[in-house]
Protein backbone atom coordinates (compact mmCIF):
# COMPACT_ATOMS: atom_id res chain seq x y z
CA UNK A 1 0.00 0.00 0.00
CA UNK A 2 1.04 3.58 -0.62
CA UNK A 3 1.33 6.14 2.15
CA UNK A 4 -1.85 7.94 1.05
CA UNK A 5 -3.91 4.76 1.31
CA UNK A 6 -2.35 3.95 4.67
CA UNK A 7 -3.16 7.42 6.00
CA UNK A 8 -6.83 6.94 5.17
CA UNK A 9 -6.85 3.86 7.37
CA UNK A 10 -4.90 5.18 10.34
CA UNK A 11 -7.86 6.34 12.42
CA UNK A 12 -9.57 2.99 11.99
CA UNK A 13 -6.27 1.29 12.79
CA UNK A 14 -5.97 3.26 16.03
CA UNK A 15 -9.55 2.31 16.87
CA UNK A 16 -8.84 -1.33 16.09
CA UNK A 17 -11.54 -1.22 13.43
CA UNK A 18 -9.59 -2.70 10.54
CA UNK A 19 -9.72 -6.29 9.37
CA UNK A 20 -6.85 -8.64 10.33
CA UNK A 21 -5.51 -8.55 6.77
CA UNK A 22 -5.63 -4.75 6.66
CA UNK A 23 -3.91 -4.66 10.02
CA UNK A 24 -1.04 -6.79 8.73
CA UNK A 25 -0.61 -4.59 5.66
CA UNK A 26 -0.64 -1.42 7.74
CA UNK A 27 1.83 -2.81 10.27
CA UNK A 28 4.14 -3.96 7.51
CA UNK A 29 4.06 -0.50 5.95
CA UNK A 30 4.58 1.27 9.28
CA UNK A 31 7.62 -0.87 10.00
CA UNK A 32 9.35 0.55 6.96
CA UNK A 33 7.92 4.08 6.70
CA UNK A 34 8.95 6.69 9.21
CA UNK A 35 6.62 9.34 7.77
CA UNK A 36 3.59 7.19 8.38
CA UNK A 37 4.83 6.35 11.88
CA UNK A 38 4.95 10.06 12.67
CA UNK A 39 1.54 10.49 11.08
CA UNK A 40 0.14 7.72 13.27
CA UNK A 41 1.61 9.25 16.40
CA UNK A 42 0.21 12.71 15.64
CA UNK A 43 -3.19 11.37 14.77
CA UNK A 44 -3.16 9.42 18.03
CA UNK A 45 -2.40 12.63 19.92
CA UNK A 46 -5.26 14.46 18.23
CA UNK A 47 -7.56 11.55 18.98
CA UNK A 48 -6.56 11.64 22.65
CA UNK A 49 -6.94 15.38 23.14
CA UNK A 50 -10.28 15.37 21.32
CA UNK A 51 -11.57 12.59 23.55
CA UNK A 52 -10.28 14.36 26.65
CA UNK A 53 -11.92 17.60 25.59
CA UNK A 54 -15.28 15.94 24.96
CA UNK A 55 -15.23 14.15 28.30
CA UNK A 56 -14.18 17.29 30.17
CA UNK A 57 -16.95 19.30 28.54
CA UNK A 58 -19.52 16.61 29.16
CA UNK A 59 -18.50 16.23 32.80
CA UNK A 60 -19.54 19.82 33.41
CA UNK A 61 -22.91 19.34 31.71
CA UNK A 62 -25.60 18.06 34.03
CA UNK A 63 -29.33 18.07 33.35
CA UNK A 64 -31.59 20.15 35.54
CA UNK A 65 -32.81 18.40 38.73
CA UNK A 66 -36.35 19.34 37.64
CA UNK A 67 -35.99 17.58 34.29
CA UNK A 68 -38.15 14.60 35.26
CA UNK A 69 -40.83 16.75 36.87
CA UNK A 70 -41.08 18.87 33.74
CA UNK A 71 -41.14 15.83 31.50
CA UNK A 72 -43.73 14.02 33.60
CA UNK A 73 -46.08 17.00 33.33
CA UNK A 74 -45.84 16.72 29.54
CA UNK A 75 -46.50 12.98 29.31
CA UNK A 76 -49.96 12.03 28.11
CA UNK A 77 -52.02 10.22 30.73
CA UNK A 78 -53.00 7.40 28.37
CA UNK A 79 -50.47 4.70 27.41
CA UNK A 80 -48.20 5.63 24.51
CA UNK A 81 -49.60 4.49 21.18
CA UNK A 82 -48.11 5.16 17.82
CA UNK A 83 -50.08 7.96 16.20
CA UNK A 84 -50.82 8.03 12.51
CA UNK A 85 -47.79 10.20 12.05
CA UNK A 86 -45.56 7.90 13.99
CA UNK A 87 -46.82 4.93 12.03
CA UNK A 88 -45.66 6.75 8.93
CA UNK A 89 -42.27 7.30 10.45
CA UNK A 90 -42.15 3.75 11.65
CA UNK A 91 -42.82 2.50 8.16
CA UNK A 92 -39.41 3.79 7.16
CA UNK A 93 -37.85 2.42 10.35
CA UNK A 94 -36.42 5.65 11.49
CA UNK A 95 -38.17 7.57 14.22
CA UNK A 96 -37.76 11.26 13.80
CA UNK A 97 -35.91 11.06 10.55
CA UNK A 98 -36.67 13.62 7.91
CA UNK A 99 -34.34 12.32 5.30
CA UNK A 100 -35.19 10.41 2.16
CA UNK A 101 -31.63 9.21 1.90
CA UNK A 102 -31.25 5.62 0.85
CA UNK A 103 -34.83 5.15 -0.24
CA UNK A 104 -34.83 6.47 -3.74
CA UNK A 105 -36.57 3.78 -5.66
CA UNK A 106 -39.85 3.61 -3.86
CA UNK A 107 -42.66 5.93 -3.21
CA UNK A 108 -42.00 7.24 0.20
CA UNK A 109 -44.23 8.92 2.62
CA UNK A 110 -42.14 11.14 4.69
CA UNK A 111 -43.48 13.59 6.84
CA UNK A 112 -44.06 16.23 8.56
CA UNK A 113 -42.57 17.04 11.64
CA UNK A 114 -43.35 20.53 12.51
CA UNK A 115 -40.11 22.18 13.28
CA UNK A 116 -41.69 24.52 15.68
CA UNK A 117 -39.40 27.40 16.30
CA UNK A 118 -40.27 28.28 19.73
CA UNK A 119 -39.61 30.14 22.57
CA UNK A 120 -39.47 27.08 24.63
CA UNK A 121 -40.50 23.58 23.80
CA UNK A 122 -43.27 23.33 26.30
CA UNK A 123 -45.98 22.29 25.88
CA UNK A 124 -44.60 19.48 23.81
CA UNK A 125 -44.35 19.67 20.08
CA UNK A 126 -46.38 16.57 19.31
CA UNK A 127 -49.23 17.62 21.55
CA UNK A 128 -49.36 20.88 19.64
CA UNK A 129 -49.24 19.26 16.28
CA UNK A 130 -51.61 16.38 16.43
CA UNK A 131 -54.93 18.24 16.71
CA UNK A 132 -54.10 20.30 13.64
CA UNK A 133 -53.35 17.70 11.03
CA UNK A 134 -56.35 18.20 8.79
CA UNK A 135 -54.76 19.44 5.62
CA UNK A 136 -51.89 18.13 3.57
CA UNK A 137 -49.64 19.31 0.80
CA UNK A 138 -47.80 16.78 -1.31
CA UNK A 139 -45.36 16.81 -4.18
CA UNK A 140 -43.10 14.52 -6.18
CA UNK A 141 -39.41 14.88 -6.82
CA UNK A 142 -38.54 16.04 -10.36
CA UNK A 143 -37.58 12.48 -11.33
CA UNK A 144 -40.87 11.13 -9.90
CA UNK A 145 -38.96 8.68 -7.72
CA UNK A 146 -39.97 10.19 -4.40
CA UNK A 147 -43.09 11.69 -3.04
CA UNK A 148 -43.41 13.66 0.12
CA UNK A 149 -46.21 15.28 2.04
CA UNK A 150 -46.47 17.71 4.85
CA UNK A 151 -49.45 17.93 7.16
CA UNK A 152 -50.83 20.76 9.20
CA UNK A 153 -49.35 23.57 7.21
CA UNK A 154 -52.01 26.26 6.80
CA UNK A 155 -50.55 29.64 5.88
CA UNK A 156 -50.36 29.39 2.09
CA UNK A 157 -49.96 26.91 -0.74
CA UNK A 158 -46.26 26.15 -0.71
CA UNK A 159 -44.08 25.72 -3.78
CA UNK A 160 -41.64 22.94 -4.61
CA UNK A 161 -38.84 22.61 -7.16
CA UNK A 162 -39.64 20.78 -10.38
CA UNK A 163 -36.04 21.08 -11.54
CA UNK A 164 -32.99 19.99 -9.57
CA UNK A 165 -29.38 19.67 -10.68
CA UNK A 166 -28.19 16.15 -11.35
CA UNK A 167 -27.94 13.85 -8.32
CA UNK A 168 -29.84 16.24 -6.08
CA UNK A 169 -32.37 14.66 -3.78
CA UNK A 170 -34.75 15.87 -1.19
CA UNK A 171 -33.31 15.54 2.29
CA UNK A 172 -35.46 17.71 4.52
CA UNK A 173 -39.05 18.81 4.81
CA UNK A 174 -40.40 20.79 7.68
CA UNK A 175 -42.28 23.85 8.66
CA UNK A 176 -42.01 26.54 11.23
CA UNK A 177 -44.69 28.29 13.12
CA UNK A 178 -45.00 30.45 16.21
CA UNK A 179 -41.94 32.48 15.41
CA UNK A 180 -44.28 35.44 15.53
CA UNK A 181 -48.11 35.53 15.52
CA UNK A 182 -49.49 34.48 12.14
CA UNK A 183 -46.02 33.73 10.87
CA UNK A 184 -45.53 30.44 9.09
CA UNK A 185 -42.82 29.12 6.87
CA UNK A 186 -41.96 25.91 5.11
CA UNK A 187 -38.52 24.56 4.46
CA UNK A 188 -37.43 22.00 1.89
CA UNK A 189 -33.85 20.82 1.76
CA UNK A 190 -32.14 19.17 -1.17
CA UNK A 191 -28.59 17.97 -1.38
CA UNK A 192 -26.07 16.06 -3.39
CA UNK A 193 -23.01 15.17 -1.36
CA UNK A 194 -21.23 18.43 -0.73
CA UNK A 195 -23.78 20.57 -2.54
CA UNK A 196 -27.03 21.64 -1.05
CA UNK A 197 -30.02 23.83 -1.62
CA UNK A 198 -32.51 24.91 1.00
CA UNK A 199 -35.78 26.43 -0.10
CA UNK A 200 -37.49 28.54 2.55
CA UNK A 201 -40.91 30.05 1.93
CA UNK A 202 -42.45 32.30 4.53
CA UNK A 203 -45.35 34.59 5.07
CA UNK A 204 -46.60 36.72 7.93
CA UNK A 205 -45.58 39.65 10.06
CA UNK A 206 -42.05 38.33 10.64
CA UNK A 207 -41.31 38.58 6.92
CA UNK A 208 -39.39 41.63 5.79
CA UNK A 209 -38.71 43.05 2.34
CA UNK A 210 -35.78 42.15 0.16
CA UNK A 211 -32.27 42.82 1.47
CA UNK A 212 -29.67 44.80 -0.44
CA UNK A 213 -27.54 42.92 -2.92
CA UNK A 214 -27.02 42.11 -6.57
CA UNK A 215 -30.24 42.52 -8.55
CA UNK A 216 -31.52 39.55 -10.48
CA UNK A 217 -34.81 38.30 -11.90
CA UNK A 218 -36.89 35.18 -11.35
CA UNK A 219 -39.38 35.18 -14.21
CA UNK A 220 -40.76 38.72 -13.99
CA UNK A 221 -40.10 39.20 -10.28
CA UNK A 222 -37.18 41.24 -8.98
CA UNK A 223 -34.81 39.14 -6.91
CA UNK A 224 -31.70 39.75 -4.84
CA UNK A 225 -28.60 37.57 -4.98
CA UNK A 226 -26.04 37.74 -2.17
CA UNK A 227 -22.76 35.92 -2.51
CA UNK A 228 -21.27 34.85 -0.27
CA UNK A 229 -24.08 35.04 2.20
CA UNK A 230 -22.26 33.10 4.88
CA UNK A 231 -19.23 30.98 5.37
CA UNK A 232 -18.50 27.94 7.43
CA UNK A 233 -17.34 29.96 10.41
CA UNK A 234 -20.58 31.84 10.74
CA UNK A 235 -21.13 31.42 14.42
CA UNK A 236 -23.72 33.88 15.49
CA UNK A 237 -24.49 34.39 19.10
CA UNK A 238 -27.56 36.47 19.53
CA UNK A 239 -29.52 35.82 22.65
CA UNK A 240 -32.98 37.19 22.88
CA UNK A 241 -35.32 36.61 25.78
CA UNK A 242 -36.90 33.21 25.40
CA UNK A 243 -35.39 32.50 22.01
CA UNK A 244 -32.22 30.58 21.76
CA UNK A 245 -30.37 31.67 18.68
CA UNK A 246 -26.90 30.36 19.14
CA UNK A 247 -26.20 29.57 15.56
CA UNK A 248 -23.73 27.26 14.05
CA UNK A 249 -23.86 27.42 10.32
CA UNK A 250 -21.70 24.73 8.92
CA UNK A 251 -22.29 24.98 5.19
CA UNK A 252 -19.55 26.49 3.13
CA UNK A 253 -19.72 29.17 0.43
CA UNK A 254 -23.41 29.77 0.82
CA UNK A 255 -25.27 32.10 -1.54
CA UNK A 256 -28.72 33.54 -1.06
CA UNK A 257 -31.30 34.20 -3.76
CA UNK A 258 -34.51 35.78 -2.55
CA UNK A 259 -37.69 37.21 -4.08
CA UNK A 260 -41.43 37.33 -3.57
CA UNK A 261 -44.22 35.30 -5.13
CA UNK A 262 -47.22 37.40 -4.10
CA UNK A 263 -47.11 37.61 -0.32
CA UNK A 264 -44.73 34.69 0.03
CA UNK A 265 -41.08 35.43 0.51
CA UNK A 266 -38.91 32.82 -1.16
CA UNK A 267 -35.32 32.29 -0.09
CA UNK A 268 -32.91 29.82 -1.61
CA UNK A 269 -29.73 29.14 0.34
CA UNK A 270 -27.25 27.13 -1.67
CA UNK A 271 -23.63 26.65 -2.57
CA UNK A 272 -24.61 26.27 -6.22
CA UNK A 273 -23.75 29.05 -8.69
CA UNK A 274 -26.36 31.70 -9.52
CA UNK A 275 -27.36 30.21 -12.88
CA UNK A 276 -28.25 26.87 -11.26
CA UNK A 277 -30.06 28.59 -8.40
CA UNK A 278 -32.07 30.56 -10.96
CA UNK A 279 -33.02 27.38 -12.81
CA UNK A 280 -34.37 25.90 -9.58
CA UNK A 281 -36.07 29.21 -8.73
CA UNK A 282 -37.85 29.38 -12.08
CA UNK A 283 -39.01 25.78 -11.78
CA UNK A 284 -41.06 26.33 -8.60
CA UNK A 285 -44.65 25.13 -8.78
CA UNK A 286 -47.42 24.97 -6.17
CA UNK A 287 -47.77 21.74 -4.19
CA UNK A 288 -50.88 19.62 -4.43
CA UNK A 289 -53.29 20.32 -1.56
CA UNK A 290 -55.73 17.85 0.00
CA UNK A 291 -57.81 17.49 3.15
CA UNK A 292 -57.97 14.67 5.64
CA UNK A 293 -55.38 11.94 5.90
CA UNK A 294 -52.00 11.84 4.28
CA UNK A 295 -52.63 11.59 0.54
CA UNK A 296 -49.70 9.32 -0.13
CA UNK A 297 -50.12 5.58 -0.22
CA UNK A 298 -48.38 4.27 2.82
CA UNK A 299 -46.41 1.06 2.53
Amino acid at each position, binding site marked *: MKCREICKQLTAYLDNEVSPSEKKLIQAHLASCQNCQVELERLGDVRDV*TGQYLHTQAAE*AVPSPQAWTVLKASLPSSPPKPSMLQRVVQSISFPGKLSLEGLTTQRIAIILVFLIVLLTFTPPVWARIEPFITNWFSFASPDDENEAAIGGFTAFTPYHATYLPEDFRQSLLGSTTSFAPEFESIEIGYDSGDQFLILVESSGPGVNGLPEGQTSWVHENPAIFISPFATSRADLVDKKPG*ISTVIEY*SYENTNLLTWFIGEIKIEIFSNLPLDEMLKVAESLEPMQGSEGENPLDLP
Partner: protein
Amino acid sequence: MEWIERTRKGDQNAFRLIFDQYKNLVFKTAYLILDDASEAEDALQEVFLKVYRSLGTYDSTKGAFSTWIYRITVNYCLNQRRKVLRFFKGRDVSGEINQGDQVSLDENISNQEIIRGALQTLSQKLRVVIILRFFLDLSYSEIAQVLEIPLGTVKSRLNLGLNKIRAELKHENAQESALREVSE
Protein backbone atom coordinates in the same frame (compact mmCIF):
# COMPACT_ATOMS: atom_id res chain seq x y z
CA MET B 1 -36.55 -5.02 28.54
CA GLU B 2 -39.22 -5.20 31.20
CA TRP B 3 -39.31 -1.43 31.70
CA ILE B 4 -40.16 -0.92 28.06
CA GLU B 5 -43.12 -3.29 28.26
CA ARG B 6 -44.36 -1.66 31.44
CA THR B 7 -44.04 1.80 29.90
CA ARG B 8 -45.95 0.64 26.85
CA LYS B 9 -48.80 -0.23 29.21
CA GLY B 10 -48.73 3.28 30.60
CA ASP B 11 -46.56 2.75 33.70
CA GLN B 12 -44.83 6.11 34.10
CA ASN B 13 -42.71 4.83 37.00
CA ALA B 14 -41.14 2.34 34.62
CA PHE B 15 -40.52 5.17 32.17
CA ARG B 16 -38.81 7.09 34.93
CA LEU B 17 -36.33 4.23 35.28
CA ILE B 18 -35.57 4.47 31.56
CA PHE B 19 -35.23 8.24 31.93
CA ASP B 20 -32.87 7.93 34.88
CA GLN B 21 -30.74 5.41 33.09
CA TYR B 22 -30.26 7.43 29.91
CA LYS B 23 -30.83 11.07 30.89
CA ASN B 24 -27.17 11.91 31.43
CA LEU B 25 -25.97 10.38 28.19
CA VAL B 26 -28.76 12.02 26.19
CA PHE B 27 -28.18 15.39 27.83
CA LYS B 28 -24.42 15.30 27.49
CA THR B 29 -24.56 14.12 23.88
CA ALA B 30 -27.03 16.90 23.03
CA TYR B 31 -24.87 19.38 24.87
CA LEU B 32 -21.80 18.41 22.88
CA ILE B 33 -23.63 18.58 19.56
CA LEU B 34 -25.58 21.75 20.25
CA ASP B 35 -22.90 23.43 22.37
CA ASP B 36 -25.51 25.10 24.52
CA ALA B 37 -26.87 23.99 27.91
CA SER B 38 -30.37 25.42 27.54
CA GLU B 39 -30.76 23.84 24.11
CA ALA B 40 -29.57 20.57 25.61
CA GLU B 41 -32.30 20.87 28.27
CA ASP B 42 -34.88 21.29 25.51
CA ALA B 43 -33.35 18.32 23.72
CA LEU B 44 -33.61 16.17 26.84
CA GLN B 45 -37.33 16.93 27.13
CA GLU B 46 -38.12 16.46 23.47
CA VAL B 47 -36.06 13.30 23.08
CA PHE B 48 -37.70 11.57 26.03
CA LEU B 49 -41.12 12.70 24.99
CA LYS B 50 -40.39 11.21 21.58
CA VAL B 51 -39.10 8.05 23.23
CA TYR B 52 -42.28 7.76 25.31
CA ARG B 53 -44.60 8.32 22.39
CA SER B 54 -42.64 6.11 20.01
CA LEU B 55 -41.99 3.17 22.31
CA GLY B 56 -44.65 1.25 20.41
CA THR B 57 -42.47 1.44 17.31
CA TYR B 58 -39.25 0.26 18.94
CA ASP B 59 -38.29 -3.16 17.63
CA SER B 60 -35.57 -4.88 19.67
CA THR B 61 -34.74 -7.23 16.79
CA LYS B 62 -33.53 -4.26 14.75
CA GLY B 63 -31.02 -2.92 17.24
CA ALA B 64 -30.21 -2.10 20.83
CA PHE B 65 -32.45 0.24 22.79
CA SER B 66 -29.51 2.56 23.46
CA THR B 67 -28.82 2.80 19.72
CA TRP B 68 -32.46 3.75 19.17
CA ILE B 69 -32.29 6.47 21.82
CA TYR B 70 -29.02 7.84 20.45
CA ARG B 71 -30.56 7.96 16.99
CA ILE B 72 -33.49 9.99 18.24
CA THR B 73 -31.10 12.27 20.11
CA VAL B 74 -28.82 12.85 17.15
CA ASN B 75 -31.73 13.44 14.78
CA TYR B 76 -33.32 15.90 17.15
CA CYS B 77 -30.05 17.81 17.48
CA LEU B 78 -29.37 17.85 13.75
CA ASN B 79 -32.88 19.06 13.07
CA GLN B 80 -32.36 21.77 15.67
CA ARG B 81 -29.35 22.90 13.74
CA ARG B 82 -31.36 23.02 10.53
CA LYS B 83 -34.06 24.86 12.35
CA VAL B 84 -31.91 27.57 13.86
CA LEU B 85 -30.61 28.14 10.39
CA ARG B 86 -33.88 29.94 9.82
CA PHE B 87 -33.02 32.60 12.34
CA PHE B 88 -29.92 33.18 10.37
CA LYS B 89 -31.60 34.15 7.15
CA GLY B 90 -32.00 37.79 6.39
CA ARG B 91 -29.47 38.90 8.92
CA ASP B 92 -26.28 40.61 8.11
CA VAL B 93 -23.89 38.78 10.37
CA SER B 94 -20.70 39.42 8.48
CA GLY B 95 -19.43 41.76 11.20
CA GLU B 96 -20.02 39.22 13.90
CA ILE B 97 -18.32 36.50 11.92
CA ASN B 98 -15.24 38.64 11.53
CA GLN B 99 -15.19 39.54 15.18
CA GLY B 100 -15.33 35.88 16.06
CA ASP B 101 -12.39 35.14 13.83
CA GLN B 102 -10.27 37.80 15.46
CA VAL B 103 -10.71 36.57 18.99
CA SER B 104 -8.21 33.79 18.56
CA LEU B 105 -5.50 36.26 17.62
CA ASP B 106 -6.05 38.58 20.53
CA GLU B 107 -6.27 36.19 23.42
CA ASN B 108 -4.12 33.56 24.90
CA ILE B 109 -6.12 30.52 23.98
CA SER B 110 -6.05 27.37 26.02
CA ASN B 111 -5.86 23.98 24.37
CA GLN B 112 -9.46 23.37 25.34
CA GLU B 113 -10.56 26.45 23.47
CA ILE B 114 -8.51 25.51 20.47
CA ILE B 115 -10.13 22.07 20.37
CA ARG B 116 -13.54 23.61 20.82
CA GLY B 117 -12.87 26.00 17.95
CA ALA B 118 -11.56 23.14 15.85
CA LEU B 119 -14.69 21.09 16.50
CA GLN B 120 -16.85 24.04 15.55
CA THR B 121 -15.21 24.28 12.17
CA LEU B 122 -16.31 20.73 11.39
CA SER B 123 -19.52 20.11 9.49
CA GLN B 124 -22.30 18.55 11.55
CA LYS B 125 -21.76 15.23 9.79
CA LEU B 126 -18.16 15.05 10.91
CA ARG B 127 -18.74 16.45 14.36
CA VAL B 128 -21.46 13.98 15.19
CA VAL B 129 -19.34 10.93 14.33
CA ILE B 130 -16.50 12.35 16.42
CA ILE B 131 -18.86 12.74 19.40
CA LEU B 132 -20.40 9.29 18.98
CA ARG B 133 -16.96 7.70 18.75
CA PHE B 134 -14.90 9.61 21.28
CA PHE B 135 -17.54 10.56 23.81
CA LEU B 136 -20.08 7.76 23.69
CA ASP B 137 -17.34 5.32 22.76
CA LEU B 138 -19.54 3.61 20.18
CA SER B 139 -17.99 1.13 17.79
CA TYR B 140 -17.98 1.90 14.08
CA SER B 141 -20.85 -0.50 13.46
CA GLU B 142 -22.89 1.10 16.25
CA ILE B 143 -22.26 4.54 14.77
CA ALA B 144 -23.33 3.20 11.38
CA GLN B 145 -26.58 1.97 12.96
CA VAL B 146 -27.27 5.23 14.79
CA LEU B 147 -26.71 7.38 11.72
CA GLU B 148 -27.93 4.80 9.21
CA ILE B 149 -24.87 5.20 7.05
CA PRO B 150 -22.46 2.57 5.66
CA LEU B 151 -19.51 1.43 7.76
CA GLY B 152 -17.09 2.80 5.17
CA THR B 153 -18.66 6.23 5.53
CA VAL B 154 -18.15 6.10 9.30
CA LYS B 155 -14.48 5.29 8.73
CA SER B 156 -13.94 8.04 6.21
CA ARG B 157 -15.82 10.66 8.25
CA LEU B 158 -13.84 9.86 11.39
CA ASN B 159 -10.55 9.99 9.56
CA LEU B 160 -11.47 13.23 7.82
CA GLY B 161 -12.80 14.74 11.06
CA LEU B 162 -9.64 13.98 13.04
CA ASN B 163 -7.43 15.26 10.26
CA LYS B 164 -9.41 18.49 10.08
CA ILE B 165 -9.08 18.96 13.84
CA ARG B 166 -5.39 18.30 13.52
CA ALA B 167 -5.04 20.87 10.76
CA GLU B 168 -6.91 23.42 12.85
CA LEU B 169 -4.73 22.74 15.89
CA LYS B 170 -1.65 23.13 13.77
CA HIS B 171 -2.95 26.42 12.43
CA GLU B 172 -3.81 27.80 15.88
CA ASN B 173 -0.51 26.67 17.37
CA ALA B 174 1.35 28.34 14.53
CA GLN B 175 -0.54 31.57 15.21
CA GLU B 176 0.26 31.40 18.90
CA SER B 177 3.93 30.77 18.25
CA ALA B 178 4.03 33.73 15.89
CA LEU B 179 2.38 35.95 18.50
CA ARG B 180 4.86 34.87 21.15
CA GLU B 181 7.74 35.66 18.83
CA VAL B 182 6.35 39.12 18.13
CA SER B 183 5.83 39.91 21.84
CA GLU B 184 9.30 38.71 22.73
